[in-house]
């Protein structure tokens, strides 16, 4: 009995460093943010506030900039997560089916992952931006097909959203391809041989054998894809600069940052309220994802 108790004590001792770090840098700030979000008019220099209530939430939820940010974030999530996962799956299957030069292509597809976000953003800007001197590379292509010039960086909303989604999909692609190609490689070849002997068509083999077998990995990518897209910020800055509210391209995380440090900043209470709202959204969607995933696994 005593040794068993000792044992669990030892276990907790081993966990202690990680627990301390998590408590100090994750749990405590989380609780703190939660408290700030209910303190009205909190001032960080004087550490004072007027009262406690839900005014911060009411302010944030009525702020057109926040609503714009929520709309942008949701559009970004809904468009990029399915598309990027689908395209990554397609490319991975293609990569997996080629024999020669497979590793070369895998390396090429992985390169964007090790490239800096801001550098990539700059390249995208050069590709898409319309200036007084040039229409940009993409517009050249559009002209070639006989279309009119579009200013993707400072032009209409849909064009900016298109660039943002394009960029996001492109940036998250390497990691997804990496995960999916290794998932595909882990499927035992005998399953495919068995399917072949039984005359299974290619599509059926993919739908009934390949996809169910790599489903845990696809599901993992969907869940982390949702979380990642909800937290988008640096990509948007890389493309549209720091004045995101003016560009109508702010995201929820961008709004939080602006409230803290931006030109209109200095409102930690509003920032906290917005952060808590984001937290609740991500938590809800992740739980819904996990529930749906579990149901799928049970079928």
């Amino acid at each position, binding site marked *: 009995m005593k040794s068993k108790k000792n044992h669990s004590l030892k276990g907790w001792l081993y966990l202690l460093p990680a627990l301390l770090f998590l408590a100090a840098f994750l749990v405590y700030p989380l609780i703190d943010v939660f408290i700030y979000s209910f303190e009205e008019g909190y001032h960080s220099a004087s550490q004072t506030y007027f009262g406690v209530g839900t005014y911060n939430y009411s302010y944030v939820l009525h702020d057109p900039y926040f609503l714009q940010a929520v709309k942008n974030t949701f559009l970004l999530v809904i468009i990029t997560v399915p598309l990027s996962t689908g395209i990554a799956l397609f490319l991975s299957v293609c990569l997996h089916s080629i024999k020669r030069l497979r590793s070369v292509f895998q390396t090429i597809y992985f390169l964007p992952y090790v490239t800096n976000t801001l550098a990539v953003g700059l390249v995208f800007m050069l590709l898409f931006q319309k200036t007084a001197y040039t229409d940009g590379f993409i517009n050249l292509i559009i002209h070639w097909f006989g279309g009119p010039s579009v200013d993707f960086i400072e032009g209409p909303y849909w064009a900016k959203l298109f660039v943002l989604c394009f960029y996001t999909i492109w940036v998250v692609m390497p990691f997804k391809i990496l995960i999916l190609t290794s998932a595909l490689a882990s499927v035992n070849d*005998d399953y495919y041989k068995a399917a072949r*002997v039984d005359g299974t068509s290619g599509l059926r083999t993919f739908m009934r054998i390949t996809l169910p077998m790599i489903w845990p990995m696809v599901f993992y990518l969907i869940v982390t894809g949702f979380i990642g897209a909800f937290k988008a910020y640096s990509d948007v800055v890389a493309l549209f600069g720091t004045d995101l509210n003016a560009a109508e391209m702010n995201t929820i995380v961008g709004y939080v940052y602006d409230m803290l440090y931006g030109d209109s900043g200095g409102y930690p209470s509003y920032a906290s309220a917005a952060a808590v709202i984001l937290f609740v959204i991500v938590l809800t969607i992740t739980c819904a994802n996990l529930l749906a995933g579990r149901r799928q696994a049970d079928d």
Partner: protein
Amino acid sequence: MKIILENLTKRFPGRDRKHQGEVTAVKDFSFEIPDGSLVGLLGPSGCGKSTTLNLISGLEMPTEGRILFGEDDVTGLPAEKRGIGLVFQNYALYPHLTVRQNIMFPLENRRGKDRLSKADMQKKAREAARMVQIEDLMDRKPGQLSGGQQQRVAIARALVKMPKVLLLDEPLSNLDARLRLQTREEIRRIQRETGITTIFVTHDQEEAMSISDLIVVMKEGVVQQIGKPQDVYDSPANLFVAKFLGTPPINLFYGQIRGQKLFIGEDAVFTLRGIPDQEVSVGVRPEGFQVCEDGPLCCDLKGVEVMGRDISVLGWHKASLNPTIRAMISGGQAVQADRALVRFSLNPAKVLLFHRDTEERIDFEVV
């Protein structure tokens, strides 16, 4: 369905820069497998037996030679058009599908007029499951089954489409010893009941001998011998086959023929006729020894193992090619374990002679 293999050869290209040059996995294999028989392909790993199975299944295409199922040349046909059932060594059951769905999978692949109604598919799946006695497990997933049960599901999946030929790749190697005995009887029974020509691959000679109508012994891509298990055991074509078959393995000695006498070392064990004087390798099956006070073969006694029905006598002889001679004698014969020497007489029917250099077997007559 009769299967004919004609001069079947499979060469694989070199794997990479380090292993250039072709590898011949199967070389000039000709064999006619009678309709409804159970054939065991036997050999050590890397001998080409699995490649042969893959050639018959159509998963590999031969470099040379032809394969006929009955009168039909199937050499160029892809696997799915050959009408074969294949059971994999690791069973390859789809883990996310239930037993029922696994068994029905081959039927659901069919399109057009070959496609059965849902009810017919269910019926066929039930029949196949009954054949291998897994009707109670239909709604489980493969992960919830034991190795033996998974094996049965794999066989049911192969049988459900009524294949012309059933192929089994190392069917028993993933089972424990007791289950192995039981399952090999099972395979024999299923094969008898269905009458489907069945070919299985194994490296376990006991497995092959016990249930096959015919065994094919292979070594390095070349067929060594084809025949009924008992015939191959009694008259192996060469030293390799003799060594490969039989547990405990055959005992080998350096020997000589001098003046119509067979010598093992300096012991003249018996007289024989019709062989010129020469150096030979002598193989003696463990059951070919008799303990005999004035027997001609004198060995150092290393130990006695009592195993119930039989006694195994371990000895050493300076002409022996194995570190230990193992003789199996029936429990009735007494051996005093504390003696230094033991003398054996040999049963000539259990003694095999081989050319020292070609390793081919030499026929002989005992006087």
